[in-house]
């Protein structure tokens, strides 16, 4: 059961990565179409110090750890 769930998450991620790396992709969102994505409200880590603090508050009190919001992501738009 646990292993199955792990596989369900892991293999699609690896597959997507391999698929993406195996071919030349024409960017389907052009640089001039990224105005919305470039808006600071679209950043996953707008406030890194605050995010790190909340991550810390949670990891102290929860059994789970890792892959948290402080590891965020961005928009690829700068």
């Amino acid at each position, binding site marked *: 059961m*646990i292993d199955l*769930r*792990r596989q369900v*998450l*892991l293999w699609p*991620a690896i597959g*997507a*990565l391999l698929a*993406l*790396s195996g071919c030349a*992709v*024409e*960017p*389907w*969102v052009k*640089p001039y*179409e*990224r105005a*919305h*994505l470039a*808006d600071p*409200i*679209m950043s*996953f*880590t707008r*406030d*890194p*110090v*605050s*995010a*790190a*603090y*909340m*991550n*810390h*508050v*949670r*990891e*102290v*009190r*929860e*059994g*789970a*750890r*890792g*892959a*948290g*919001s*402080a*590891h*965020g*992501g*961005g*928009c*690829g*738009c*700068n």
Partner: protein
Amino acid sequence: MRAAPTVVAVAAIDHRMRVRTAAVLTAGTLLMGPVGVLHAAVLPEERLDLLYHSYDGGGVEVTGPSLMVRKQIGQSLSVSGNYYLDSVSSASIDVVTTASPYTDERTETSLGLDYLHQKSTLSLSLTRSDENDYEATSVGVGVSQDLFGDLTTISFGFGLGSDDVGRRGDPAFSESVDRYQYRLGLTQVLTTRLVATLAWETQSDEGYLNNPYRSVRYIDPGAPVGYSWQAEVYPSTRTSDAASIRAKYFLPYRAAVFAGYRWYDDTWEINADTYELGYIHPFDNGWLVEARYRRYAQRAAEFYSDLFPFADAQNFLARDKELSSFSSDTLGLTVSYEYSGAPGGWLDRASINFAYDRVRFEYSDFRDLTGSTGVVGAEPSYAFDADVVQVYVSVFY
């Protein structure tokens, strides 16, 4: 009032072990901007953040500042430093039950370096955490790379930590922990309004993972209250996997919604699910409001029990409520005001921010011994609310 020799110096109960264990490795990621934090091959912005934080819940108060400064050197190097302080005052349920309240301080300092070369960023971090009975050091290295017209960023990172564990009032006590952390990240622009990020993280620990102060209880017909205490015993290794997916969507008007899910599993048989949902709404006059909800639920460690049937009932024993089955719900609100600097001036912009989160913890197999019914093992389940407040200023220059 000190209840039992094994818990005399108490500390650790809510804060310690986990503060150090989890925090030090992950703290490095605060400074490692580009690792999993995708900003199409540019260095992180130059900024200064000064934050005051306060946590108040379950008899525990933790306050302190955090200061981060980031400065660019030349065109391809960014340097950052962070100072963080936790000032702890604890009269938690564990402390009330088995020991005496305590105060403590933990300081953490980090240094980070990001080097940009074309579409790749190399990041290094060094973090140090100090308490009077625990020291932790970690180093981290990470690489991120933009691909496919900057629609995709992949990243990976590796962290190494080393902890020295002491015990108050026992100078002869000296243990250590080695920690390893592996991270993979993929951030993908999906449409002109939608971006998603996948993250994978494996952590592996080896060494003294116990809390040297904490105890488990077991049925003892000879004791006046019907139970007694003995020291916890944890396995000396732990490996965990976590995977998360998060997405953010720009609405037809200037606002965004975000959602996330994290799956977690480890060799102690704890597994957990985390869900997040939020909405961000900026206003034209510089104000911004964010509202969010988070749901967390976990299953207990295989060797956890609120009440063991007898002393030394099994080889590993834990009654740490963070290892029990429980859920928490968090409602949060952030209000920010941003000021734009004059064109050509040194100040690009600055913001002042106020964040409040209310957390409700409900434990399903951790009992509140202060509410004893007279029947051992039939005490009410423990639950509490916590208030988390942050006030911070961010200056971009």
